[in-house]
Structures are given as C-alpha cells and as structure tokens.
C-alpha cells in the first residue's frame, strides 16, 4: 500500500497556556485508505500525546468527530485523505462554537436548545401497556425516518450562516428533531413544540441558505424539515387569525 506524507495543520488551543488558538503542523505518513481521523490518531499515538479531539465509533455513527476540514464542516472519520487535494490538510474545531480545547468545542448551547424543543414522544394520555403497542404503517414511518438519522455532529451549525449571525437561533439539528417528533403518528406534542419553534429564534430565523443540508453527513436534510415546519406554522397562524385555531394556551 502506498504512503503519502501530508502536512496536517491542526488548530491548537490549550486554555491554561495559550492566549489564542494557533496552528501546529505535523508531518503524517498516511496509508491509502486513511481518513482524516486516522491521521489525528497517528499524531496522538506517535507525535504529540497532548492533542485533544473527540471521536468514538470511527464509522459515522456516533457524531463525535465533526470538525472543520479545509474549511468545511465534516466528520473526520468519513473524510478520506485521498479525496482531499494537495498535501496540506487543515483541521480546525467546528466554527460558531467556543473552543474547549484543541479540536474539542463546547456544545452546551446546542444541548440546551435540543432539550428545549422536547425531542421525545408527547402523549395527552399515555396508553396502558395492556392495550398493546402504538402501531405504525410503513408510510407513517417514512414521514419522519430520515430525520431520525441525525447524529448531533453539529456540522450543520458550523455551516449555518444564520447561526453564525444570531447565536439565539435554535438551529438546524434541534429544529429537525422537533420536526421528527411532530411528524411521528404516535406523537401529540405539536402544540407544545410550536410554542418553542414557531418563534423568531426558531424556524423564522432560518433564511433557507440550505448549507445545513449540503454538509449533513447523514443526508438528514434539515433545511427541508424547517421549510415544512414554516408551512405548517403558517397554516396554523392563519387558522388562529380567523378563529379556527386549536386549543389556546
């Protein structure tokens, strides 16, 4: 197997000793089948044990290793070095987030927003177990299945120009998760979630740049979820206007 030596430029930031982020370059001999994460692991194991980055599954399932690769948000476990041009690769922490250390970002803002949209099934009354499970047809499952594939890697937040401008914006992944439960035939929580998402900080801060859907490594298509929510929220707004709205809160 052929080796290719690359210059891996890594943004470093160690809060106890660095005033601001800086770039450290490592020479990494890469195998043909390596992804960017393999190069980082090589650095950590062989060149510099102090380098910090998140990873777990190495197979685009866990969502831990999202980072900026040559300026684009991507999973480092899914980005093959052979697909990147030139022999210099730049990795940086996801943009739009505070840096915790090196390539590790502070996710608190997203976690708080994720909880706010109530991403779980809400029932007016829960069905007794004796009545059996909530059954769902393949067509009902298809309505939301795509949106369940989100792994919270936050690439969409790094890509979103609106989140960059407006930190209060709930943002693509959290809104998509709200839509995922709204579309679930077992769920009855639309009204509750609407109070959170049909706000200026919710779906209405989205300007439909579509960057979230372009970078999403799982093809979740958050932009489509948000536009669908805009349509249903608009219909409900007009219904409320002419007095046909559902229950008032």
């Amino acid at each position, binding site marked *: 197997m052929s080796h290719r030596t690359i210059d891996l430029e890594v943004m470093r930031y160690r809060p106890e000793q660095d005033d601001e982020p800086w770039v450290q370059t490592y020479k990494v001999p890469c195998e043909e089948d390596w992804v960017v994460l393999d190069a980082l692991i090589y650095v950590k194991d062989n060149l510099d044990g102090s380098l910090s980055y998140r990873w777990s599954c190495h197979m685009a399932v866990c969502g831990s290793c999202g980072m900026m690769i040559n300026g684009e948000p991507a999973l480092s476990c899914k980005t093959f070095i052979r697909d990147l041009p030139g022999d210099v690769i730049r990795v940086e922490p996801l943009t739009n987030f505070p840096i915790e250390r090196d390539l590790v970002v502070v996710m608190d803002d997203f976690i708080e927003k994720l909880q706010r949209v109530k991403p779980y099934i809400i029932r007016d009354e829960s069905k007794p177990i004796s009545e059996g499970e909530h059954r769902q047809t393949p067509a009902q499952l298809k309505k939301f299945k795509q949106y369940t594939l989100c792994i919270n890697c936050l690439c969409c937040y790094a890509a979103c120009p609106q989140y960059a401008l407006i930190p209060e914006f709930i943002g693509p992944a959290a809104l998509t998760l709200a839509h995922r439960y709204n579309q679930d035939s077992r769920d009855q929580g639309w009204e509750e979630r609407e*109070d*959170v998402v*049909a*706000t200026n900080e919710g779906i209405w801060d989205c*300007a439909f740049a579509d960057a979230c859907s372009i970078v999403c490594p799982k093809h979740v298509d958050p932009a489509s979820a948000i536009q669908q929510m805009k*349509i249903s929220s608009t219909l409900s*707004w007009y219904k409320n206007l002419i007095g046909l709205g559902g229950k008032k809160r």
Partner: protein
Amino acid sequence: MARSNKPLVWSLFAAGGTLAALLVPALVVVTLVVAYGYLPAALDYQTMHAFAANWLGKVILFVVIALCLWHAAHRLRTALHGLGLRADKWVAKAGYTVAGLGTVFAIVYLLQIH
C-alpha cells in the same frame, strides 16, 4: 417566547416566490421577443387593454404584481441581513411599506382601466 407573526410576510413571500419562479422566465422571454420587434397579436395594446379591463384579468394582474412585490421586499430583507446590514427593523419597514404602497397603487390603477 411568543409565537412569531412572520407567517404573514413569509406566506406572501413564499407565494410570490413560487409565482415568480414560474412566471419570470416566461416574462423575460416574452419581453425579449417583443424587444426584438416581433409583436404577436395577443400582445398588442388593444388585446392587453381588454385583458386588464376584464375582471378576471384584473385579478390575475393584481395577484402577480402584489405577490412579486411582497416577495421582493422579504427577499431583500433577508439578503441585506445576510450581507451584514444590522438594521432589520428599518429594512423591514421600508421594504414592506413599498410593497404595501405598490399593492394599493396596483388596485387603484387596475380599477381605472375600463
């Protein structure tokens, strides 16, 4: 957090955008065809005047003009915000005022065509 009132402007924006996407390419082609001197009978002054004098024609012209104006106002608002202009309130007010005036003028002038 209160629910937003943006559905009002967004629905006009969305409807106008859909309409513009369908109509603008055709309008560009028609305008070019006429500009290059070919005037089909359906586009001469008498026919167009009769179209605007008809009630259905008035409704069609009104919907196209008004929705396109509202679409443009909202598109400019989001575009200017995206370009870094931090005066959303004023941009919104100015844009929607122009669209509102255009809507009113469209009604007034269309009603004057008999």
